[in-house]
């Protein structure tokens, strides 16, 4: 099972792969995006497809922010935090949003 390093592609000839998680260095809490590009036998590459995996905090709430990948200029941007969660039986009381840049 390969160990993934952010930004470093792993190539396989099989269509499924298991992500190795080092117990000493688990994936950080939050959302992790994985990308797949496929290449045919002529060297043609596909557009990338992505999927998000959320590692939830076992002690504190976990924020998950979802937003469209692109929007038209002048249109509003929907920021969606509904996938966020708290450790049961807690409940989320506040959402704190920041535009970083």
């Amino acid at each position, binding site marked *: 099972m390969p160990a993934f390093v952010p930004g470093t592609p792993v190539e396989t000839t099989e269509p499924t792969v298991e992500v190795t998680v080092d117990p000493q260095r688990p994936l950080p809490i939050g959302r992790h995006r994985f990308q797949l590009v496929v290449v045919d036998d002529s060297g043609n590459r596909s557009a990338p497809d992505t999927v998000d995996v959320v590692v939830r905090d076992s002690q*504190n709430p976990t924020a998950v922010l979802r937003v469209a990948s692109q929007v038209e200029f002048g249109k509003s941007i*929907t920021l969606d935090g509904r996938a966020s969660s708290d450790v049961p039986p807690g409940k989320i009381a506040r959402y704190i949003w920041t535009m970083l840049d």
Partner: protein
Amino acid sequence: MPVFTPNVALETAEPIVEAEGAPAGRRRFSLVVEDEDGNRSEPSIAVVTVLPPSFRVAVGPGPVDLAYDDRTREVWVLNSGSAERNRGSVSVAGLARRQVLATVVVGAKPSEIALSPAADRRRAVAVNTGDGTVSIIDMQTRQVTATVPVGERPGAVDISADGRWAYVVLPAAVVVVDLLRQTVAKTIPVGAQPARVIFATNGREALVGNSGDGTVSVIDAARQAVSDTVRVGGATASKPQEVALAVETYPAWSANPGNRTGSVIQPDHTVLDFRLEEACAGVAVTFDGQIALFAGADQPLLARVAFEGGRPAIANARLPAPGGGPKGIAISPNDAIALVVHPETAAVSLVTVKRPQLIARLEAPRGPLRTVAAGSFACAICQDDALLAVDWSGVTV
């Protein structure tokens, strides 16, 4: 709906918020949630691309080249014509009014257009490959003042800084056209299969990329003769396709798809060649010539090459354009952003120059062909007979 200010947090009790007024470009947002006991989460960060505004102007039929007049803020689009029409035309499109202001009929199967950079007696030159002529156009009256035979299969063209001379590429030579007398003044032998000619803005030299023998001919503009011939790519088969110049001429850059190399040419005409990951046929340079962007000929690669401490440093980016490489690049006046066109896919890409990174990908139906920097816009001609103008002035990176 709230307007977000960078790094100023907004708190809500609801899990959804609509943000307004974000500038064009890649925007990062952060969400932290807090439960009833005051426990806070780690931030979750997401990126959204706010597409820059753009518009389209109908041109054509058959746009093949374009050039920008920064004095009038007009884009001159050269149209090859349709199967029914034997002659091409030029659509003069005004960016402020977003429409074609004038149409000029030229010769058969035109392929390239150049605009005089001079301040007065301004002329445009359209190369009519189909009938071996050039059309000289008065840029003020938008009338063809002369049609000058130059020889068989003319191709690339550029106009000297003083607006007096047009250099037109033929299969084995460069023809000098006197735009004042509207005649052929001279023929300058250059290398084999010249593909591109470009004048230095200082008017002293013109460079010709010779794809047939892997050389660049340096023409002394005062003598109108070749003063030097330099080998690029280190091989006869390097096939230089595109030469780009800094504002002060040097360093000059050459894209050599024949052997997957690029070259940088110094003021003393010494050449430094470097290998590229893919064959690149297009190149554009920043104002000072210290950074060049190379476009992959068949693969969606963009290579940023910076000339640092006498050596080229290369950073590559793979653009999301499966099925075809970028063919044309234009760099914004502030050297921060580039527009890349992908003819085989229906898209243009906006990328950062500092690190070749995708900012936005805009749909461009029926394949964009060529692009030019047009002040606050990046313009591209598209195969559906349209000029696409993308406002890159407000894009922050």
